[in-house]
């Protein structure tokens, strides 16, 4: 077997292979480590500090300090302070904590709602299937962001202007979560339709298992992988959606800020040159979302090699 022709080509291929291995092998691991570190930062720092968004946490005397390496920076405030004298390192931790919490919760809601509807559509079939899938078609016109805005406006009309922080957060979580149900429902439905006629399910049915038992013991475990992949990818979208809503001033209130809210605040100080108030939450948001997406893409490739390289 002649191999002389292959030697030079292999050396030419090296840069692309290196790039590919970074992207496909170490990339997801780096991203996962970044996610873990950021999550730790977001959930551990608040345990050992005064809430900067309470009255006790503000200090007007220290307001609008630039990051410590710039002229006029205070060594105690690494990334500077905002207009209320909050330390940015602290404010970012609280903001990220809110963003992650809202993102995870809304993904879970979408998963539960969509999962249930998908199971019903797939298992019951008939009119239930038609109804649920037509509703899914209609909702295609309204992406997560738009739907969340509409739901938010409607809820405002129902409950009026007086809302507790808890109510405001709940509204945001539900309206984002609801926007995601279609994808989960479609995935589960198609899996159920494939699985329910397979031999092992028929066998379980003949051996006297109830329909619900079949769903939980036989069908759900088989569709967990794709659901998990979609959930990861949706987490990135949920966090961006929440940040956008907060930026637009229809999301989480200022006393319980998310990254989007911090950017909204910072945006007001851009014109006067105090760039850091908006810049840090922007950078943190982008890093977090990119890391989530890298992990999500990797999971998709692992669980569903057929889709590799798409999009």
């Amino acid at each position, binding site marked *: 077997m002649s191999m002389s022709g292959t030697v030079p080509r292999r050396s030419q291929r090296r840069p692309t292979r290196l790039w590919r291995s970074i992207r496909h092998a170490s990339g997801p691991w780096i991203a996962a480590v970044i996610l873990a570190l950021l999550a730790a930062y977001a959930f551990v720092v608040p345990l050992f500090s005064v809430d900067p968004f309470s009255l006790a946490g503000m200090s007007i005397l220290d307001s609008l300090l630039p990051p410590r390496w710039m002229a006029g920076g205070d060594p105690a405030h690494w990334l500077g302070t905002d207009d209320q004298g909050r330390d940015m390192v602290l404010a970012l931790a609280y903001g990220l904590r809110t963003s992650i919490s809202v993102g995870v919760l809304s993904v879970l809601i979408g998963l539960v709602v969509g999962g249930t509807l998908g199971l019903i559509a797939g298992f019951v079939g008939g009119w239930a299937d038609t109804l649920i899938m037509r509703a899914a078609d*209609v909702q*295609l016109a309204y*992406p997560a962001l*738009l739907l969340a*805005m*509409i739901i938010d406006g*409607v809820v405002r*009309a129902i409950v009026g202007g007086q809302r507790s922080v808890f109510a405001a957060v709940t509204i945001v979580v539900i309206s984002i979560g609801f926007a995601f149900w279609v994808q989960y429902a479609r995935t589960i439905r198609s899996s159920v339709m494939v699985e329910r006629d397979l031999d092992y399910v028929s066998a379980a049915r003949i051996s006297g298992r109830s329909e619900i038992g079949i769903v939980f013991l036989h069908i759900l475990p088989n569709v967990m992988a794709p659901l998990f992949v979609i959930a990861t990818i949706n987490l990135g979208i949920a966090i961006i959606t929440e*940040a956008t809503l907060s930026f637009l001033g229809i999301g989480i209130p200022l006393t319980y800020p998310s990254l989007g809210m911090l950017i909204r605040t910072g945006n007001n100080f851009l014109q006067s040159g105090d760039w850091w108030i908006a810049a840090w939450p922007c950078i943190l*948001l982008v890093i977090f979302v990119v890391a989530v997406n890298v992990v999500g893409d990797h999971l998709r490739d692992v669980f569903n090699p057929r889709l590799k390289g798409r999009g």
Partner: protein
Amino acid sequence: MLSYVSSRVLQTVAVLLVISFIAFLLVQNLGDPLAILLPPDATLAQRDALVRALHLNQPIVARFFSFVVDMLHGNFGISYRTQEPVAKLIAERFPATAELAFVSLLITIVIGIPAGVYCGVRPRSWMARAIMFTSIAGVTLPNFVVGVVLIAVFSVRLGWLPSFGRGATVNLGFWTTGLLTRSGWESIILPAIALSTFQVTFVIRLLRTQLMEVGRSEHIRFARARGLPDRRIWYVYAIKNTLLPVITIMGLQLGNIIAFSVVTENVFAWPGLGTLFLQSIQAADIPVIAVYLIFVGAVFMVINLAVELSYPLIDPRILKRTS
């Protein structure tokens, strides 16, 4: 074919009726229009007149019917927030949004399509890799962050372009345009770029994937085996095969583009429909929200229906399959 078209049109109308019914229920059940629209010292006669004007004295089916008829006549109800007819609010703001959408579509076509074709034809070149790398930013950066960064760089730092408003506009009677003045063009550049970021990167990635897939097909290989010039193979033989999925997927992205227009208009204080919608949400102005709900659904459904009905023009195989 005719029956196919009519059944699809009927389906679209049915879906729009469902959306309208949801909007109708919102308007009917949220807020008390009488309390909001009537002055505190209103007489009983004024009150009765309003009840009749809003059809509040009729059964629900009749009210829904008159709601739909009103909508079709351009009578969209009255805003709780400004007490003006919703139709008037929309007419005032529509030109701003339409011009923004037009310019950003222009950017998408001029930049997105050539770059996408290039990346699909030469996926391994360093240029294509650079474009793909940059496009990751376009896909992951939140829309409002793009706007904020553009303002920070081009308005605040460099001072080249304005960061808010439409600039000077010219009233043409039926249309106010910003595209006839220098300040109007300067004002539209940044928001149009911000709005087109998503579309441009989306078109690039989509075209690239589609072209790479078609490029592997047997008929392209046969075209090569016949010695057709590369240009002709890519720009005619391959691209014609990608049109169908590309316009289909773009049509389905329309909802996203509308959502991003709301965000972009807010970032740049653009006086368009998106800003109106956002103000209405903050004020829980249900009549405007309801109209917007119907409007977005109608635009989405009608455009996607048009896309679907244009399939036979693009791909001769479709006609056979559907008829």
